[in-house]
C-alpha cells in the first residue's frame, strides 16, 4: 500500500532533519563550552567538565548519536539562559501558538473557500478578477506590515481592540478572543489567499464533471449543485493541501506574535536568537519540522480516507 511506502519514506526524512538540526550547531561561532562557562571561562577544569558533560570532547558522529539519543527520549537539552528543559519551554508556548493557528486556519477557511467558490462559479467575471486580485495582494503583503496597519486602524484610531498582549483561553474566554482575533486574522489572511486559489482550481475541475452535469440535468437548483455536488468533492484536495500550509502558519506566527507581543512559540524563537540560546532555537526547528512531517502524513492519510476512489488503488 501507498501508506506503508509513505511511512518508510518518513524515517529517512526524520533522520535527515535531525542531522540538519545537529549541523546547525556546528555553524555556531565560538566554543559552546566557553559560552556556557560564563565567568569561569578561564578555568580549564570547568571547561573540561562542560565538554565532558555535553560530549563535546567526542567525535562528531558520537556527539550526534548522543544528542539524537537524548532527543528520542524527549530530552531536547536545556536552555542556556533559564536552564529549563527546552521541551518544557516548548510545551508551555505551543498552546498559545496553537490557539492562534487554529483561529487563523478557521478564518482562512471562512474567507478562502467561499471566495474560491465564487471565483470559480463566476469564472472570468468581475468577481473572479476581484477575488484573484485580493488573493494576490494577500500573498504579496508582508503580514507584519498588515498587522501594524490593522493595529493603527482598529486599536489606535478606532480603539476597538487591544493593540497587543495575550490572555489565555483558560483565564477569560472573551478577553482571550479579543487579544487574539486580530493576530489570527493577520495570520489567516495569507492562508486564505492560498486556499482561495486551491478552491478555485479544484472547483473548476469539478464543475466540468459528468455528475455535476447530471445534477443540473435532474433540475436541482444551482445552489444545490454547487454546494452539495461540486463543493463537497472539491473540498477534499483543498483541505488536505490546506493542511500543508502549517509551515506558512508557523513562519507567519513568528512575525505576528512579534507585532502583537503574544508570548507564543514564534516569540520564543526570536527571543532565543537574541539571547544566543542555541538549544532553544535548535529545539524549535526540530519540533516544527517533525510537526510538519507528521501533519503531512496525516493529510495524506486523510486524503485516502475521505476519497474512496483511492482506497482501491
Amino acid at each position, binding site marked *: 500500500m501507498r501508506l506503508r511506502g509513505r511511512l518508510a519514506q518518513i524515517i529517512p526524512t526524520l533522520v535527515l532533519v535531525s542531522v540538519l538540526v545537529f549541523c546547525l550547531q556546528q555553524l555556531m561561532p565560538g566554543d559552546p563550552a566557553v559560552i556556557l562557562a560564563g565567568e569561569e571561562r578561564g578555568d580549564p577544569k570547568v571547561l573540561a567538565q562542560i565538554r565532558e558533560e555535553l560530549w563535546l570532547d567526542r567525535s562528531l558522529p558520537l556527539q550526534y548519536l548522543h544528542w539524537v539519543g537524548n532527543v528520542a527520549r524527549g530530552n531536547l537539552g536545556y536552555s542556556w539562559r533559564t536552564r529549563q528543559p527546552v521541551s518544557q519551554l516548548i510545551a508551555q508556548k505551543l498552546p498559545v501558538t496553537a490557539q492562534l493557528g487554529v483561529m487563523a486556519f478557521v478564518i482562512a477557511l471562512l474567507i478562502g473557500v467561499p471566495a474560491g467558490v465564487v471565483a470559480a462559479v463566476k469564472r472570468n467575471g468581475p468577481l473572479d478578477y476581484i477575488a484573484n486580485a485580493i488573493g494576490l495582494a494577500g500573498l*504579496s503583503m508582508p503580514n*507584519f506590515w498588515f498587522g501594524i496597519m490593522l493595529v*493603527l486602524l482598529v486599536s489606535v484610531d478606532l480603539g476597538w481592540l487591544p493593540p497587543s498582549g495575550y490572555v489565555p483561553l483558560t483565564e477569560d474566554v472573551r478577553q482571550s478572543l479579543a487579544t487574539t482575533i486580530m493576530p489570527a486574522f493577520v495570520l489567516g489572511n495569507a492562508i486564505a489567499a492560498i486556499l482561495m486559489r486551491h478552491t478555485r482550481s479544484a*472547483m473548476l475541475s469539478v464543475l466540468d464533471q459528468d455528475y455535476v452535469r447530471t445534477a443540473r440535468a435532474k433540475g436541482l437548483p444551482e445552489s444545490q449543485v454547487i454546494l452539495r455536488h461540486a463543493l463537497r468533492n472539491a473540498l477534499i484536495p483543498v483541505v488536505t493541501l490546506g493542511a500543508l500550509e502549517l509551515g506558512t502558519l508557523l513562519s507567519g506566527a*513568528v512575525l505576528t506574535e512579534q507585532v502583537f507581543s503574544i508570548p507564543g512559540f514564534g516569540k520564543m524563537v526570536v527571543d532565543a536568537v537574541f539571547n544566543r540560546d542555541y538549544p532553544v532555537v535548535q529545539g524549535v526547528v526540530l519540533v516544527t519540522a517533525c510537526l510538519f512531517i507528521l501533519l503531512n502524513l496525516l493529510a495524506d492519510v486523510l486524503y485516502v480516507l475521505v476519497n474512496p476512489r483511492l482506497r482501491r488503488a
Partner: protein
Amino acid sequence: MAPTRRPHDATGDAMQDPRRDAKGHAGGSGAGADAKGPASGGGAGGDAGGDLAGYAGGGDGMGDAGHHPGKGGVALGQPAGRAAATADPPGAPQPRIRRRTPDRTLGQTPGRLAVRRFLRRPAAVAGMAVIVLFVAAALLAPVLAPYDPIATSWSAIRKAPSATHWMGTDENGRDVLSRVLFGARASLLAGVVSVLIAAGIGVPAGLLAGFAGGWVDAVLSRIVDAMLACPFLILAIALTAFLGPDLANAMIAIGVSTAPRFMRVARAATLEVTGADYVQAAWSLGARASRVAIRHVAPNIVPPVLVQATLALAAAIIAEASLSFLGLGQQPPAPSWGSMLNAAQRFLTQAPWLAVFPGLAIFLCVLSFNLVGDGLRDALDPRAR
C-alpha cells in the same frame, strides 16, 4: 541509456509544494486534485510536466489548434492549454472562428513567442514597469534622495509628511523618503543575491538528481524533503541566529532555505526533458552523459527555473524584510524597509507615517515580482493555468 523512473516519484513533487501547485493548476486542469492520488502516477514530471511541453516543443499549443479549428483562434492570446484542459461547459457558445494564418507563429523562436504572450498581459507588464522603477530607485538612490539617509537632525524629529519631507521624518530626524529609496538597495540586493545562491545550489542538484536517478536522486530528494520540512522563515531565522545577524548572513540564510524549491523544480523539469525525443536522439548519437546534461537538458529546464526564480525573488524580499524587522537582517543605521517598520512600531500613535511608506514599498515590490512571475509562467507554459 537514459535513466528511467518510477512515476510516483514525480507526482510526489507536485504534491509537496502546494503553493506552486495552486498557481500552476489554477484554471483547473484537475491535476491539483489528481496529483495527490496514486492513481495519477502516469503523469510523470508533476508540475513541470506542463511547464515544458509548451516551450520545448516550440509550439504554443498549436497542436491543439490543429485538432480544434474552433479553438485555434484563441491559441495565441488565450493559451490553448486552457481551452484544451478544461472542456467548455455544455451549451457554451463556441468561440468565434478567427482566421489567423499560421505564418504569425511559424519561424518564430519559442522565446519570442513567450515574450509576445508576456506582453499581452497588462498586469505582468505593469509589474515589470514597477520593478524597473524600483531598480532605478535603488541604483540612482544617491542622486534621487533629497537627504542623506543616515544623517540625523534634531530639528526635524518625527515631522509629518510635508513639502520639505515628502514622507516625513523618523525618530532621529532622518528623511523617510531618502531611507525608503536607499532601502530599495538592501531589499533588491538581498532578493537577487539570495535567489542566485538558491539557484546556484538547487539547480545543479536538481539536474543531477533528475539526470542521474538511482541512489543519487534518492539521497538528494530526501535531503530536500528534510529541508522543506522546516518552515522557511524558521529555518532562515535559525541560520541567521547561528551565523550572526547581518545582511550578508541573512542573504545566505534565505538562499539556503530557498534552495530546495529550486532543486524540486529543476529535478521535475529534468525528468520531463530527459524523456524528450531530442534527448533520446542525443543519446543514440553516442553523446556522453555530461554533454547530454549540459548541452541538451540544461538549456531546456530554464523556463520553469526562471518562473521559480521570479516568484522566489518576491519571497526573498519578504523574507529579508521579515528578518530585518526582527532585527536579524540589515543592521541600523543602514536603511532597510524591514528595520524601518520595526522602529516605526514604537511610534505608532505619534508618527503613523513611519509605518506606512516602508510597508507600502515592500508590498508594491513583492506584488510586482509576483505579477511578473505569474505572467512569465503563463507565457512560458501556456498549459498550466
